[in-house]
């Protein structure tokens, strides 16, 4: 091991070779021996953090208390290294009903309805056991949405892996996808979108982010608050086992190597139980018996109790012997820190416990009263009535130190930024087109998403494979539109631009359907924040994100930070991922990405690419030249905002036949994908479209930058010729460039270039041939 990696300690600890004299965990560490062995270090706490605990507590913590601190003060739970930076993100807006701080953000979508949504990472568990890691990742974020009182209705899964031809990466890829498929499908929550990108930087550290979205009425909103001293604390769902407690399993003996097998650090997902938990909790919440709800994720009972009490300013008393356990002889420490899945914490009025129990029984679950809310402000843990831990809830949940780590501009940037894109030779265009379209990152992800049930609940009007997902809201004309986006390569080359692009791209993905972006959630995946260069990437990316959010008026209502995504000093590309939620007022006016009618005009709304800088960090550059270089420009945020406006208004006036945003693979990929048509048929069928376009290269522009350039805010739209004046007016009124390229043509993609007075055919291919290359890039070998 090259470096202490606290992230590995999140939710559990390394093996502690440490004598524990009793099975209770309630003893006080003797100062001398404690200083000698410094158990907090193995638990991931720094010496000064331990001293802070002693100071705030006014005494030494006992072992159980130390464990509780260690987990809640971990990076994962306490955001020690990110909190200060995240404060810069705009979190307010007219649509925001609940912002950061709760289990999920909530946006008003009108008609008394609201959307709860959030994204979370499960990167580290997936690196160890991809199937269960991904499965429990889905389970965790679903419970966050459930905790708000919303019915979870959609999942999205932004994923990153090493190259698919690398065996380890292929194994992780396959495991993660089947884990999501296994868990999400069983829950009956459609997985309607996501991303899969590949780069060597994710080889040892795959990213598995999962976003969940739920719908509820305003008056069904719940919060994770343990208010009302005297109220009961109940746990519903699975019994508690030793899952997820890495080290420190208590036994009255020295832990040895062979104890390894006794300490399962892999949590096993049980989607069947989660499905019952969803139904039971929603039913309980609708009875009025429930005062507050909190999911149990990292650090299980400890964190859910501490957080709910801290939010409400109350205390709590827990009797560990009342917690249903699945294994014998569990210590208070183990009960309090277990990360057994599929459990929820409920705060229940004293006389309403029978209602909760009855509903739980109906769904075949166990529900137990494990304690009560108090007014002391302390989280008190008892075993058989004997106090084994007492910590102020606020200190535990909110008292962790906040760091502002050193940051310095990464050295690699000097080299990557100075790369001369102008010096690139011009390759064979036909060859480049096929190379880019069959690049793993650009290629069809149908082999992934056809393993997901994306139609269950019968609200999926546009599912995976169509840019953003469009969900109808039954009983209304509305549609909720959602998309996740992020680009690690761009962020690596220009972190600030990467943070901006994630927001812009996600907003455009939503807007091309005609929906107005309302708010976003994020997952910030980075390396070790104690490395100044990594922290610089983080600060820059968040700053970029914040600025883009302000310009686009899409506040951030919550999210997640995942640090320490690195192995042996090799960090992943800094990868901020954004999930945007938008609203379509009339689902009948939604726009899909596919060309509809031969003869429709094809145009670029927004910036026209062509400048060599547009190739910086592009898929084209990596695929055709093996280069990750250049300095990607920051997006023009005013233009991006106007583009959103033009897309939303134009769709509202039913101007467009199709619209798709320009991202990886440039306008070439956007044109090709518009031509391919949907890929939802399991049996290949249905005719494909095409287009005949003519491009002209402006001064200083390169042909390859026109076709494959990415650093632009633009959309490829098609519309019937009679709409041209109106589209032109709309663009003009918003100060947006509109470039007519050509027309929709069935079955072929033809690209011509005009240089001076000459027109040259660059490309003339059957759409079917390109679609085959694009859709078979992942075909089973």
């Amino acid at each position, binding site marked *: 091991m090259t470096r202490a990696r606290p992230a590995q300690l999140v939710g559990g600890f390394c093996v502690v070779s440490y004598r524990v004299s009793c099975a209770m965990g309630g003893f006080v560490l003797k100062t001398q021996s404690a200083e000698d062995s410094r158990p907090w270090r193995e638990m991931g706490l720094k010496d000064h953090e331990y001293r802070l605990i002693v100071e705030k507590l006014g005494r030494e913590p006992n072992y159980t208390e130390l464990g509780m601190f260690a987990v809640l003060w971990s990076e994962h739970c306490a955001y020690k290294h990110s909190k200060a930076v995240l404060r810069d993100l705009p979190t307010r807006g007219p649509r925001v009903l609940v912002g950061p701080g709760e289990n999920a953000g909530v946006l008003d979508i009108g008609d008394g309805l609201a959307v709860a949504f959030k994204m979370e990472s499960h990167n580290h568990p997936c690196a*160890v*056991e991809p199937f*269960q890691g991904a499965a429990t990742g889905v389970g965790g974020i679903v419970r966050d949405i459930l905790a708000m009182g919303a019915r979870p209705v959609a999942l999205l899964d932004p994923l990153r892996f090493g190259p698919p031809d690398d065996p380890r990466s292929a194994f992780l890829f396959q495991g993660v996808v089947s884990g999501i498929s296994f868990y999400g499908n069983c829950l009956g929550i459609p997985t309607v979108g996501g991303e899969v990108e590949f780069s060597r930087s994710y080889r040892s550290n795959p990213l598995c982010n999962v976003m969940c979205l739920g719908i509820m009425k305003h008056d069904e909103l719940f919060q994770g608050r343990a208010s009302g001293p005297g109220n009961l604390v109940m746990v519903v769902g699975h019994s508690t*086992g*030793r*899952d997820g407690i890495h080290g420190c399993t208590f036994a009255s003996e020295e832990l040895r190597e062979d104890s390894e*097998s*006794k*300490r*399962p650090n*892999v*949590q*096993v*997902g*049980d989607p*069947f*139980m989660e499905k019952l938990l969803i139904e039971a909790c929603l039913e309980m919440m609708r009875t009025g018996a429930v005062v507050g709800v909190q999911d149990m994720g990292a650090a299980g009972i400890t964190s859910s109790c501490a957080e709910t009490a801290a939010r409400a300013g109350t205390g709590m008393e827990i009797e560990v012997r009342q917690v249903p356990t*699945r294994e014998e002889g569990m210590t208070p420490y183990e009960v309090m820190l277990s990360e*057994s899945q599929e459990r929820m914490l409920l705060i229940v009025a004293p006389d309403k416990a029978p209602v909760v129990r009855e509903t739980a029984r109906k769904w*075949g679950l166990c529900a137990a009263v494990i304690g009560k809310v108090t007014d002391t402000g302390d989280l008190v843990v008892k075993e058989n009535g004997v106090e084994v831990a007492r910590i102020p809830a606020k200190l535990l949940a909110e008292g962790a130190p906040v760091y502002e780590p050193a940051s310095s501009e990464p050295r690699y940037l000097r080299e990557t930024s100075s790369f001369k894109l102008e010096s690139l030779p011009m390759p064979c265009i036909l060859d480049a087109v096929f190379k880019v379209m069959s690049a793993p990152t650009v290629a069809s992800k149908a082999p992934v998403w056809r393993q997901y049930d994306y139609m269950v609940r019968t609200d999926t009007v546009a599912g995976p494979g169509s840019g953003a997902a469009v969900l109808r809201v039954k009983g209304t004309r509305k549609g909720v539109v959602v998309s996740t986006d992020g680009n690690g390569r761009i962020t690596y080359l220009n972190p600030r631009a990467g943070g901006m692009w994630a927001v812009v791209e996600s907003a455009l993905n939503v807007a091309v359907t005609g929906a107005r972006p309302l708010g976003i959630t994020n997952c910030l995946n980075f390396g070790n924040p104690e490395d100044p260069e990594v922290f610089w990437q983080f600060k820059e990316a968040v700053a970029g994100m914040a600025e883009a959010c302000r310009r686009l008026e899409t506040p951030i209502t919550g999210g997640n930070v995942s640090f320490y995504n690195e192995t042996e000093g090799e960090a992943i590309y800094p990868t901020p991922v954004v999930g945007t939620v938008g609203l379509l007022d009339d689902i009948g006016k939604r726009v899909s990405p596919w060309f509809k009618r031969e003869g429709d005009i094809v145009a670029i709304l927004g910036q026209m690419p062509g400048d060599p800088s547009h190739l910086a960090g592009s898929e084209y550059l990596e695929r055709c030249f093996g280069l990750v270089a250049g300095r990607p420009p920051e997006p023009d945020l005013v233009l991006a905002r106007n583009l959103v406006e033009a897309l939303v208004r134009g769709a509202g006036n039913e101007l467009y036949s199709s619209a798709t945003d320009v991202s990886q693979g440039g306008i070439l990929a956007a044109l090709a994908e518009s031509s391919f048509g949907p890929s939802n048929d399991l049996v290949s069928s249905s005719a494909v479209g095409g287009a005949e376009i003519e491009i002209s290269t402006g001064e200083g522009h390169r042909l390859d930058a026109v076709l494959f350039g990415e650093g632009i805010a633009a959309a490829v739209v098609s519309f019937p010729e009679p709409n041209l004046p109106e589209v032109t007016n709309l663009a003009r009124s918003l100060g947006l460039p509109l470039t007519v390229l050509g027309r929709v043509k069935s079955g072929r993609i033809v690209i011509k270039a005009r240089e001076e007075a000459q027109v040259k055919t660059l490309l003339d291919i059957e759409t079917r041939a390109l679609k085959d290359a694009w859709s078979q890039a992942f075909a089973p070998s």
Partner: protein
Amino acid sequence: MRFGEVQGVLLVRYRGTVVVTLKETIFDPQGEAVKNSLVAMGFSSVTKVRMGKHIIVYLEALNEEEAREKLADMARRLLANPVTETYEISLVEVPD
């Protein structure tokens, strides 16, 4: 007994069995659900169920030792997930 022949060497056919089970400490939701159903069906004396895999591999090898080694190798590398599972192997020579 049947012999295969590779480059002039006689090979024996074996029927190997790899039993893959979850480590004792790993929670087994499937087993739990099956147990509950069995109890509901009236088998009230069932206290626990664990689900595992029973994989039968037909292979050829020079001798039992080699077959056993290969089988263990397959189990380690593909058939069992070392993070969550353990395995046991057994072997019999098969007549034609």
